[in-house]
């Protein structure tokens, strides 16, 4: 039965008009990006590029769109059904609410994964045909901010893509939880986007007196993307020209993984509990 419920939920998502809009956005983005990228590298800039660079840069650009799409999608999984009243006929089936909740969330995660992988594959294949691969090239990275290690460009590229996809999942779970608990999609989208935009962590970066504190290391937005902890995210230069670490002060990967697991478990537990106990009125 779970398989049939899951398939039903996936079909619901596929029929959403948003997919067409997103498809057009991604299609145009790929086209424009390819043209611009091509222009830069064919200019006599002396740059050497490969499919991995091409894919990595594109993915870091579209991941924001994907995150917001995932948030909007997840926020409405239950909230829209409550709003439109369709939840009643669904809950009048011999399907437990736990099964239904799991199927809804899993369907959304699978759907976004398919979308992300599809786009990545198209971009990578284009890059491969146009620039060739340097995937086996060795790259030096830093694990947890203090342990250097070597890997290949392919692993770095696709590892970062995978971790960024995990961050999309994390925000989707939060959006799903808020949307379900509040039975309000708009509220969930707004709150999760605020969370995703890192607005809560901004004061800690901009205000000197706060910058010295270690509060950032426990914030959801700081830890959602783990790629910084294994040296896979882009670093920025600080005022002195040195490398600004992507790891928040006092933080480490173990704490980040633990905190994320804790936050997401709490969000999911609250969702399951409320869905199972709530009267449909």
């Amino acid at each position, binding site marked *: 039965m779970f398989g049939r419920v899951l398939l039903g939920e996936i079909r619901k998502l596929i*029929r959403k008009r948003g997919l067409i809009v997103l498809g057009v956005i991604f299609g145009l983005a790929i086209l424009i990006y390819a043209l611009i990228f091509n222009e830069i590298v064919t200019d006599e800039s002396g740059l050497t590029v490969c499919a991995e660079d091409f894919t990595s840069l594109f993915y870091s650009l579209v991941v924001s769109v994907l995150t917001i799409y995932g948030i909007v999608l997840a926020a409405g999984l239950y909230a829209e059904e409550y709003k439109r*009243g369709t939840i009643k*006929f*669904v*809950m*009048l089936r011999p399907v437990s609410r736990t099964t239904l909740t799991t199927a809804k969330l899993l369907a959304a995660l699978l759907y976004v994964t398919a979308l992300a992988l599809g786009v990545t594959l198209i971009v990578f294949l284009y890059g491969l045909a146009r620039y060739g691969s340097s995937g086996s090239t060795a790259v030096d990275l830093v694990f947890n901010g203090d342990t250097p290690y070597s890997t290949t460009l392919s692993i770095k590229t696709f590892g970062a893509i995978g971790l960024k996809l995990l961050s999309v999942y994390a925000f989707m779970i939060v959006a799903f939880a808020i949307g379900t608990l509040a039975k309000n999609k708009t509220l969930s989208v707004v709150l999760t986007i605020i969370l995703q935009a890192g607005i809560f962590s901004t004061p800690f970066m901009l205000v000197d007196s706060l910058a010295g504190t270690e509060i950032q290391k426990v914030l959801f937005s700081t830890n959602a993307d783990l790629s910084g902890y294994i040296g896979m995210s882009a670093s920025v230069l600080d005022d002195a020209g040195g490398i600004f670490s992507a790891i928040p002060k006092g933080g480490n990967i173990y704490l980040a993984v633990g905190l994320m697991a804790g936050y997401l478990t709490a969000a999911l537990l609250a969702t399951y509990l409320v869905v199972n106990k709530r009267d449909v009125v």
Partner: protein
Amino acid sequence: MAILEVKNVTKVYNKRGGRSLTALNDVSFSVDEGEVVGFIGPNGAGKSTCIKCITGLATQTSGSVTVCGFDTVKEHVDAIANVGAIIENPDTYLNRTALDNLRYYASISRIEVPSGTERKAYINDLIDDLLRQVGLYDRRNDKVSKYSLGMKQRLGIAQAMIAKPKLLILDEPTNGLDPMGIREMRDVVRTLAHEQGVAVLISSHGLAELQQTCDRFLLIRSGRLIADFSADEVGEGEGTDLVFTVDDVQKAVAVVEQNFEAKAKPIGENRVEVTSEGNSPAAEINEKLVQAGVRVSGLYEKRKSLEDVFVSLTEKGANDVR
């Protein structure tokens, strides 16, 4: 055999500020196989809450509900597998066709497929039959957003029947249906109950329609079940109304009220309705009217309708009735 058993169900809603509302108070009843039961009561009486407790959409504060012997709380999935229902509005997926909607509901329902039959083909045939039965076959590929309320109601009925339930619960099923649709609905319900043994619980404000459809009635008021009576009992009991056709209505009303312990009420220009406790003395009233110079050109006995019973019972105190 009882398909549905509701035992001492109480539902209390906790409101803000520590207040609480008792929507159902110790309600008990059962519905047998092949029985059509009308669930009636004023707005806010607790009908929908009771139906939601039966279907598991809400959980009762105390008491129990069983469907085919399965507890709707502890064995929810098995209990609900035997239930088909429309509750309040027929809210299906508007951006999908009737066919898509039914295929989706079928996919997550427990449908017994005869051995040796391919599931998909069986379900497709089942859906086609249902669509024909509710008169939507020709519009099966239209999006539900283009449907009228009556058509949505028919689709709601189809989804309720898709898993061939043993208990069918219909909350205002004739909303939006035209007279032809109401008649078809009645025929479908009676056929399901009397030929296939489905137990049916119908909640509706359409009392005239219910009177023609149901075998038994449950009357609920302020969260309490105040009456449980068979269709045969409607029209019986204390009091009968007589309707006289007369040439002078005002005079006739005066004569009746002066000479009998009865209430007389003018109806239109030339009729008087006389209501009395106990047996109505039709012959005596007629004689008095003639003696007083009132010309009586017609007389008939008006049997009490379900509506009369409903009004009478809901106006009385709950304790007077049970």
